[in-house]
C-alpha cells in the first residue's frame, strides 16, 4: 500500500501509509506533563513530536459534509513538542506504555503541518499541509523537525495520522508557536553543603543562546525546589543585572542532619510544561567542631587585635598629654649638665627690696593743659616738668613746690594762688602705689629750699582741704604712680635727707595700699634712682595720681628707709 493522495475538503486531510503485519507494536501513550518520566535526550536543537492521547476534534471538514472523522475511538491524541538545550547527549528513543495496546499489525504514521501565516490558499489543497519527508510511514513515535520548522515566530499547525492496515487509528492536530511554546530544559547546577547553608550554583553558560538569549535569562527565572522528606519548598531567585555564566543561590535556615534534594528549572511559558531537572541531594550536617574551632580562632584573633589597638591608643594618649616621654626642652639656663655651672655657679643678681605703704587718695582730676610748643611758657601753665632723666613732675601745692627751680612747673606749683594741686589724672587703678617720696616732700627740706612746707592738699574740691595745716588729725592717702615719680638716689644728699627727717616737720604718712605693686614700682624707682641720680633735689617731684576725697590736711614727715628711699608720712588732720 502506497501513499494515497490527500483527500479534498470533504475528507480528512491525511496521508495513508502502509501497514505491517505482525507484532504488537503500537503507539505508546506518553505520560502526562506532570508525571515523572525518563528524561528524553535529544540532539541539541532538535524538535520532536510525540503523539499523545488526548481528545480533540481532528477533522477540518465541516460536520455537515459528513467527512469529519473521529480520532482513535478509545483514546486521545495530541502532539507534544520538545526542545533540548544541552549539547552533549545523543537522542534516545522515547518509550512509554502502550495504551491502548494494539493487538495486531504495525502502526505507521506520518506528520503533516502547515504554516498558519503562510500563503492563504485553499486548505483542502495538498500544498497547504506539507508532509515531513523523514516522517512518512514511520513506526517510531517521534519525528525530528529541526530542519523543517525553522520559523520560530510563526504558528505551525501539525497533524499526525496513523494507520494500521486500512484503519485510521490516529489523527491528531496541534498548533505550536515555537518561540513561546518551546519548553526550556533545566540548566546544569551543582550543590555544596556548608556549615549553615547549602549553596546552589546554576550554570547558565550551558544554555544554547539560540534557545534562550542572555537577556531572556533575566526573565525566565530559575526556580529552585528544596525537597526535605515530604516537604517541598520553592525558591525564585532574583536575577539582577547581566548574568551570563553562573548564578549562585544560598539556601539557609536548614534543619541539621537532614537530607536535602534540590531541583532547578526555568519558569515555563506554558505553566503546564515544567521541565524539572533531576534531584541532587546532600545531607546537611553542620560541622560544629570545626565551626567552634574556627569561631574560637576568629575570636582569639579579634581579641588580640582589640588588645593591641587599646594598648597603642593608650600609649599615644599618655604621650600626648605628657605623662610619658615628656620632652625635655628646658631652657639653657636650666641645663645643669654643664660642669662649669656646678663648679662656678652663677649667683642670681641681688634685688633690692623695700616695703612701702601706699594710701589711696581721691582727688579732683585736674585737666592738664599741656603745651608742647617750645615757645610756650610752661611756667604759666600746669605743665609737667620734664627733667633730663625723662621724668615728669607736677607740683602738688604751692606750699610743696620748691622755691627755686628751673622748672616752670615748679614755679607753678609754688604759686600760692593755686588752690588745687596739680595732680595728674590717675591711670587705671586707684590703688596705684606711690613711691615714698623723697620727692616733693623732700623738696621741702632740701637745701634748694622750698619756700614753704606744709600739708599736701589732698582734696582739691574742698576748700577746707586747703586749710589742712590746721588739721593735725588723720592721714592723707594718695596714690602715687611710681612710674611717674622722680626718684633719685639721695646718697649725695644725705644731709638733706637728714633735714627731712627733722621732727619739726609734721609727719606725713603715705600709705601704700598695694605692697606688691609698690615693691615693683619701688624697684623700678630704685633702679631709676641708681641709674639716674638727681643732682638737683629740686628736680625731685612726686606726682600723686589719686587722693581720696575724704582726706584733708596732711602733715608730712620723712623716714629714711635706707638705700636712698625716704618714706614720706603724711598725717591727715581730717579724715572722713
Amino acid at each position: 500500500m502506497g501513499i494515497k493522495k490527500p483527500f479534498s475538503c470533504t475528507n480528512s486531510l491525511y496521508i495513508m501509509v502502509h501497514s505491517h503485519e505482525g507484532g504488537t507494536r503500537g503507539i505508546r501513550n506518553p505520560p502526562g506533563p506532570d508525571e515523572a518520566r525518563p528524561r528524553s535526550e535529544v540532539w541539541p536543537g532538535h524538535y520532536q513530536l510525540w503523539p499523545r492521547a488526548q481528545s480533540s476534534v481532528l477533522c477540518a471538514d465541516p460536520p455537515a459534509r459528513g467527512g469529519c472523522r473521529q480520532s482513535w475511538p478509545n483514546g486521545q491524541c495530541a502532539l507534544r513538542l520538545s526542545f533540548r538545550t544541552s549539547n552533549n547527549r545523543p537522542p534516545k528513543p522515547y518509550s512509554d506504555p502502550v495504551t491502548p495496546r494494539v493487538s495486531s499489525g504495525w502502526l505507521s504514521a506520518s506528520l503533516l503541518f502547515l504554516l498558519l501565516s503562510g500563503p492563504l490558499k485553499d486548505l483542502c489543497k495538498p500544498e497547504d499541509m506539507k508532509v515531513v519527508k523523514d516522517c512518512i510511514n514511520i513506526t517510531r513515535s517521534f519525528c525530528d523537525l529541526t530542519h523543517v520548522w525553522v520559523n520560530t515566530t510563526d504558528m505551525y499547525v501539525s497533524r499526525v495520522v496513523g494507520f494500521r492496515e486500512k484503519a485510521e487509528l490516529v489523527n491528531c492536530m496541534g498548533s505550536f508557536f515555537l518561540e513561546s511554546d518551546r519548553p526550556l530544559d533545566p540548566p546544569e547546577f551543582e550543590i555544596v553543603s556548608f556549615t549553615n547553608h547549602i549553596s546552589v550554583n546554576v550554570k547558565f553558560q550551558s544554555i544554547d543562546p539560540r534557545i534562550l538569549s542572555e537577556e531572556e535569562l533575566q526573565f525566565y527565572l530559575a526556580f529552585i525546589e528544596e525537597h526535605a522528606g515530604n516537604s517541598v519548598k520553592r525558591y525564585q531567585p532574583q536575577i539582577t543585572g547581566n548574568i551570563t555564566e553562573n548564578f549562585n543561590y544560598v539556601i539557609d535556615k536548614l534543619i541539621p542532619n537532614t537530607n536535602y534534594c534540590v531541583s532547578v528549572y526555568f519558569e515555563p511559558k506554558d505553566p503546564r510544561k515544567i521541565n524539572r531537572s533531576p534531584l541532587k541531594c546532600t545531607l546537611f550536617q553542620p560541622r560544629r567542631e570545626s565551626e567552634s574551632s574556627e569561631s574560637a580562632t576568629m575570636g582569639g584573633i579579634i581579641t588580640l587585635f582589640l588588645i593591641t589597638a587599646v594598648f597603642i591608643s593608650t600609649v599615644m594618649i599618655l604621650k600626648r598629654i605628657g605623662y610619658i616621654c615628656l620632652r625635655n626642652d628646658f631652657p639653657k639656663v636650666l641645663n645643669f649638665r654643664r660642669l662649669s655651672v656646678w663648679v662656678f655657679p652663677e649667683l642670681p643678681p641681688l634685688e633690692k627690696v623695700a616695703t612701702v605703704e601706699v594710701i589711696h587718695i581721691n582727688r579732683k582730676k585736674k585737666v592738664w593743659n599741656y603745651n608742647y610748643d617750645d615757645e610756650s611758657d610752661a611756667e604759666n601753665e600746669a605743665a609737667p616738668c620734664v627733667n633730663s632723666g625723662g621724668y615728669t613732675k607736677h607740683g602738688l601745692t604751692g606750699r610743696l613746690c620748691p622755691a627755686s627751680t628751673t622748672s616752670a612747673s615748679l614755679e607753678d606749683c609754688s604759686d600760692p594762688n593755686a588752690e588745687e594741686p596739680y595732680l595728674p589724672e590717675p591711670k587705671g587703678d586707684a590703688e596705684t602705689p606711690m613711691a615714698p617720696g623723697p620727692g616733693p616732700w623732700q623738696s621741702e627740706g632740701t637745701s634748694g629750699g622750698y619756700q614753704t612746707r606744709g600739708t599736701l592738699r589732698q582734696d582739691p574740691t574742698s576748700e577746707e582741704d586747703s586749710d589742712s595745716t590746721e588739721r593735725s588729725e588723720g592721714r592723707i592717702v594718695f596714690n602715687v604712680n611710681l612710674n611717674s615719680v622722680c626718684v633719685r638716689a639721695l646718697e649725695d644728699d644725705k644731709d638733706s635727707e637728714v633735714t627731712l627727717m627733722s621732727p619739726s616737720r609734721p609727719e606725713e604718712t603715705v600709705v601704700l595700699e598695694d605692697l606688691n605693686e609698690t615693691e615693683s614700682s619701688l624697684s623700678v624707682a630704685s633702679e631709676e634712682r641708681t641709674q639716674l641720680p638727681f643732682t638737683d633735689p629740686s628736680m625731685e617731684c612726686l606726682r600723686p595720681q589719686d587722693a581720696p576725697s575724704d582726706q584733708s590736711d596732711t602733715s608730712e614727715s620723712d623716714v629714711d628707709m635706707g638705700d636712698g628711699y625716704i618714706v614720706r608720712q603724711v598725717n591727715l588732720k581730717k579724715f572722713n
Partner: protein
Amino acid sequence: MTYRCLLQMVLLLCFSTTALSRNYSLLRFQQRRSDTVCQKLLRQLPSTPQHCLEVRMDFQVPEEMRQAQQFQKEDAVLVIYEMLQQIFSILTRDFSSTGWSETVIEDLLVELQGQMDHLEPIQKEIMQKKNFTMGDMTVLHLKKYYFNLGQYLKSMEYNSCAWTVVRVQMLMNFSFLKSLTGYLRD
C-alpha cells in the same frame, strides 16, 4: 554673550545625548521585560488555531515583519510605539465570545500602557525631527495591517475563531517587537 550661549548649547547637547543614551538602555530592558510578560499573558488566553484554519485571512503583514531588517534605534522606537498603540486598540474591543479572562486582558492593557508611557517622551522627541525615514514607511504598513485586523474582527462579529486568528497575529507581533527591542542600543 555669544560664547556664553555657545557653551551652554554645547553642554545641553552633551547632556541630552548622555540622557538619551541612558534612556535607550533602560528602554531596552523595559521593553524586553514587557514583551515577555505580554507573551505570557497571551499564552494564558486559551485557543485552538487548528480549528480555525478555514477562517484565515490575508492581513497584509508588513514585509518588515516577515523578514528581518536593520533598523535604526529611532525607527525602532517609532515602530514599537505604533505597534503597542495598535495592539492596545484591538484588545479594547469586544472579546466576550471567547470566554477569555478579563483579568488577563486588563493586565495586558496595563502592561501595554506602561510601556507606551516609557516610550512616549523619546517618541515625541524623534517625531519633532520630521525626517522621513524607513521607520515612517514601516509605520504606514503597520497602520494598514492593524486596520485589516480590526476590520476582520468586525466582519466576523468578534466570534471566537476571529479572536483566535487575531491572537495568533498578536503572538507574531510580540515576536517582532522582541526583535525590534534589540535595536535599542547605545
